[in-house]
């Protein structure tokens, strides 16, 4: 399946915007990505192996955090994963 890589993480995929990985589930695909591009792992996962809080992963148009099976959701060959870091901010402290 295809995984779309956001601009700041392409430094760790040899500049590739889209990479192909095997899988079966979202978690397996992300693990495959981290194995193919080891430098990515620290940017995606905490030392405990959890997705970093600011890293969003979408299976097609669905946030995997809100899918019933979350990372264990099945992912077909023609599905697409998109990794998208969050974007937020604001002008001053509350």
């Amino acid at each position: 399946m295809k995984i779309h890589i956001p601009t700041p993480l392409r430094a760790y995929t040899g500049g590739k915007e889209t990479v192909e990985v095997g899988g079966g589930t979202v978690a397996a695909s992300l693990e495959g990505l981290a194995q193919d591009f080891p430098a990515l792992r620290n940017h995606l996962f905490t030392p405990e192996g959890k997705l970093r809080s600011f890293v969003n992963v979408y299976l097609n148009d669905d946030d995997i955090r809100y899918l019933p099976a979350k990372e264990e959701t099945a992912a077909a060959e023609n599905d697409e994963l998109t990794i998208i870091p969050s974007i937020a901010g604001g002008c001053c402290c509350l």
Partner: protein
Amino acid sequence: MIRISKEDYEALRAHGEETYPNECCGVLLGKSEAGGNRVKLIVRAGNTRTDSAHNRYHIAPVELVRIQRQARGLGFDIVGFYHSHPDHPAQWSKTDFAEAHWMGCSYVITSVEHGKAAITNSFLLKGTSEEDKAFEDEQVTIDDEALVEAGEVEIGLD
């Protein structure tokens, strides 16, 4: 340095005026070049922080996914983001820094004073990780001569 057309530059400033006293936000599409990020298109985004829109912004990830898909279709990348600071300086805040995760991207901030766009600055997020990231001031270069008199931008030559 970030390069942007006069049209896009004015449009992102106008967006801040339209949403005043709330913050606006949007995405900058283009290409990262040797000299810096070049903006080819700006895309307005909704601010999901309706609970505190006057001093916070957040772009829904699903909207970012769609904008990134749009960029891919056009042959562009996400090269930055913009937002406004209503009645606050065009300087990054602690919140802006804490929530910045797009290394190599430009974060453009416009101060909107009493409803009128004032200063527009840009900050390049440098670094390789959350531990060593830092904002660096970057020059905003507008590819049009009309804004010379504004005094805050340098004019591009191409």
